[in-house]
């Protein structure tokens, strides 16, 4: 089966006073309908990789294949959920969700109507006319989620989307994400530095080395049964076994990454 998204031998070098290799020789494949989580120490170039997959950043070497085709320019099959605030502050929630449809030429009223449906799906039916600054952090993430999913992308790229939320809100959002994803399985590439989050969400966890020149150093199939509740699955025996095995590998890299950050 052709992978939905394939990163082949990707290297990203940033020119500067001293050129910096963010990621080197990275190959990752995401099958259709597969949920892949990438974990690694902070600052290991995971976000760089996601930008490459989105087509926002051209790699210095290597190829990105989307549904088998080499990627040129922006990845039109992908939706991207950013880590930072990404909503347009001058548009209310419904208009933000509708934005992608409008960019595709859908008539305004119809796009707003469909946006309202999606807002209801993420539990915000009464908040369509609120502006981003009138919403809580968790609500803004829901809007961003609806904004991405309304376009029905076959690939979803997520860059630590919930890292700014408090733990309870975060688990709520993770469960909602899983529920939406189970209903309509897309290929997901989910980046996080939180191993628990990675295991509880994904089908497969890829572990990255510390930067510079970060690369995958191992991957683990997560055979926890679905549907999962992210809070409960963390208490199962199998989860703990997986956690221990992956953490053993990750621990060394986290320490390495930490030591390097201290040097800087």
């Amino acid at each position, binding site marked *: 089966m052709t992978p939905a998204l394939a990163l082949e031998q990707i290297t990203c070098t940033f020119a500067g006073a001293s050129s910096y290799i963010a990621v080197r020789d990275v190959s990752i494949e995401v099958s259709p309908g597969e949920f892949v989580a990438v974990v690694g120490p902070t600052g290991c170039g995971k976000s760089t990789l996601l930008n490459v997959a*989105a087509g*926002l950043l051209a790699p210095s070497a290597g190829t990105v294949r989307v549904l088998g085709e080499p990627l040129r320019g*922006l990845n*039109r099959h*992908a*939706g*991207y959920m*950013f880590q*930072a*605030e*990404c*909503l*347009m*502050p*001058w*548009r*209310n929630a419904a208009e933000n969700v509708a*934005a*992608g449809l*409008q*960019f*595709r030429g859908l008539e305004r009223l119809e796009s707003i109507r469909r946006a309202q449906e999606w807002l209801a799906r993420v539990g915000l039916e009464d908040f369509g006319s609120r*502006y*981003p*600054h009138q919403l809580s952090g968790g609500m803004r993430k829901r809007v*961003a989620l609806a*904004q*991405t999913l309304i*376009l029905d992308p076959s690939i979803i790229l997520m860059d630590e989307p919930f890292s700014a939320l408090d733990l309870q809100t975060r688990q709520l959002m993770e469960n909602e994400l899983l529920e939406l994803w189970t209903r309509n399985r897309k290929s997901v590439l989910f980046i996080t530095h939180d191993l628990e989050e990675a295991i509880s969400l994904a089908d497969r966890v890829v572990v990255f080395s510390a930067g510079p020149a970060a690369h995958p150093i191992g991957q683990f199939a997560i055979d926890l049964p679905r549907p999962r509740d992210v809070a409960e699955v963390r208490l199962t025996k199998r989860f703990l076994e997986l956690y221990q095995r992956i953490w053993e590998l990750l621990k060394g890299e986290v320490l390495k990454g930490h030591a390097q950050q201290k040097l800087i």
Partner: protein
Amino acid sequence: MRSRNSSRGGIRLFAYRLLLLFSVFGAWHLLTATGILPRFFFGTPTLVLENVARWFINGKIYAHLGVTLVETLLAFATGTLLGLVIGLWLALAPIASSLLDPYIKAGNAMPRVILAPIFAVWFGLGILSKVALGVTLVFFIVFFNVYQGVKDVSPIVLANARMLGATRRQLLRYVYLPSATAWVFSSLHTSIGMAFVGAVVGEYLGSSSGVGYLILQAEGAFDINTVFAGILVLTAFALVLDFAVTALEKRLLRWRPAAPIVEPH
């Protein structure tokens, strides 16, 4: 919702403000009536107020105020439009912007009031020369705010809009323009004030109508009371404009929690 307490405080504050106004007029009256300040140079408040009242009763002022208002609004609209278009263009075209940068700075640094005689020669003594002066004042405020507004767009919001499928033109219309206009609106007070300054100064330097013209005429006749009356009317007019702008701003910037302003210096 205001609590009763703060609304009572508001009334008291208003009373004190009125009191301050009356004491200034009272002091003015006393000082000129007793001759401590020469009446010839400082006028007489009662005569000044009488002048103002006469203008409004015989209706002479309305035509002049109308002219000043038209000049102000035209200068404001034209200056804003030019600032918006050129600001957007330069903010998105790095080569043109680095080419024009020193000239923009020079244009902004120049005391533009000095252009009034040139505009009078080019456009005559009618409305146009005042509008032109106002435009040169408004343009730079709007221009710098638009420029800032475009630079202010978060790269994440931009990347997000692109991922959602926005074309270059759509980015301009749905991302850059709203961000820029927000900055323009937040500088509305300054720019409409500048348009007003342009109109009045232009009238004062040479015209055949407008409140600035009334003041100029009175000054020529050493009629200091009418000069003060003109100043009073202009001030009140500026306040009304400012209230109108505040109301407009509240409507247009609903989405914004707080509004920063860049002012050219």
